[in-house]
């Protein structure tokens, strides 16, 4: 195995530069008539003509011209896009299309391929038409409708504009004087308040119950209601 690799190595041993006569050493060997030292390029003709700057060092090229604007700069700041960047990354962008176009009627959040109404298909297969012309009487006859309401599933057009927005407003309702927070801490206080209110309601109920019981006891012992037992709910109500 070792022998084999050695053989292979030996066979691949470069005896001359792969670039051939482009090497400055090879140039010296060829003894060009360049005593002045000004010739710093090799012009190769043939199938792929090229000018190779050889210079005093092998493979030395002119330094690359530096662009004024490179990745070393903060490009976001350079193009004044920091504000936009902060705007999009600072707050959570809602995922649905309806949140971007809240005034658009109908259900627009469903994937377009389900309804065969994608914008991509419009680009891939553009509709063929000459121009828009007003409909004549015959064409309008095709739009003669039957009176009566539409079936329920086709009535999404009846949704009032901005209904979704209203719902959202209700969700993020906050008291005057309070500032809405993005991390949802405002919702937390609301929840706390709701719990508190619930507790208050429960207390009120208990108090009312106790009052009722007291009343019943009084009625029980009063001479006006002699044999009314509290275990008979149908009669208590009366």
């Amino acid at each position, binding site marked *: 195995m070792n022998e084999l690799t050695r053989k292979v190595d030996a066979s691949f041993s470069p005896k001359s530069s792969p670039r051939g006569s482009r090497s400055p050493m090879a140039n010296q060997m060829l003894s060009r008539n360049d005593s002045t030292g000004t010739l710093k390029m090799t012009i190769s003709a043939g199938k792929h003509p090229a000018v190779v700057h050889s*210079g*005093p*060092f092998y493979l*030395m090229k*002119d*330094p690359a011209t530096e662009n004024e604007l*490179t*990745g*070393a700069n*903060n*490009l*976001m700041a350079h193009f004044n*896009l920091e504000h*936009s*960047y902060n705007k*999009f*990354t600072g707050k959570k*962008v*809602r*995922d*649905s*299309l309806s*949140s*971007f176009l809240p*005034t*658009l*009627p*109908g259900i*627009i*959040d*469903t*994937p*377009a*391929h389900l309804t065969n109404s*994608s*914008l*991509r298909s419009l*680009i891939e297969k553009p509709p063929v038409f000459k*121009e*828009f*012309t*007003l*409909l004549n009487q015959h064409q*309008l006859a095709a*739009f*003669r*409708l*039957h*009176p*009566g*309401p*539409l079936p329920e599933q*086709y*009535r999404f*057009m*009846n949704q009032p*504009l901005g209904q979704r927005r209203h719902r959202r407003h209700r969700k993020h309702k906050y008291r005057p004087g309070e500032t809405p927070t993005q991390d949802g801490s405002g919702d937390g206080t609301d929840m706390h308040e709701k719990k508190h209110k619930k507790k208050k309601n429960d207390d009120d109920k208990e108090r009312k119950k106790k009052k009722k019981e007291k009343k019943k006891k009084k009625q029980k012992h009063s001479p006006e209601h002699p044999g009314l037992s509290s275990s008979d709910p149908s009669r208590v109500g009366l």
Partner: protein
Amino acid sequence: MSSSLDQLENQLETFIENVRQIGIFVSDFQPQGQQVLNQKLQNLITNMQDIDKLRNAVQEVHVPLEVFEYIDGGRNPQLYTKDCMEKALTKNEQVNGRIDAYKRFKAMLLVELSHVFPNEMTRYRAVREELS
């Protein structure tokens, strides 16, 4: 350009409003409303004609095709802008790091070469200064 875009936006809004009204109108259609419906349909065509007239004014507006994927998927197209900006920032940082690494590599290479080939490097520096 912005005025033509505003115009287009207004025209589209008018068109959408017209469609919405037709939607409401036909959802509970009354027999005497046929004439009104016909008029609204003709208005719709006029709206489309107006939109078509603005076509040449917005020829210069280029929209990335990827945005359509977001819209077709029922997603907010602003997410595309957000993703693009995040990607651009990441790429900017990556390239910045690469440039920095190459600069350091060049400096280290020059130092090491100067140790090993002091004469050649002196000559090299002289040539470089000549060129620059």
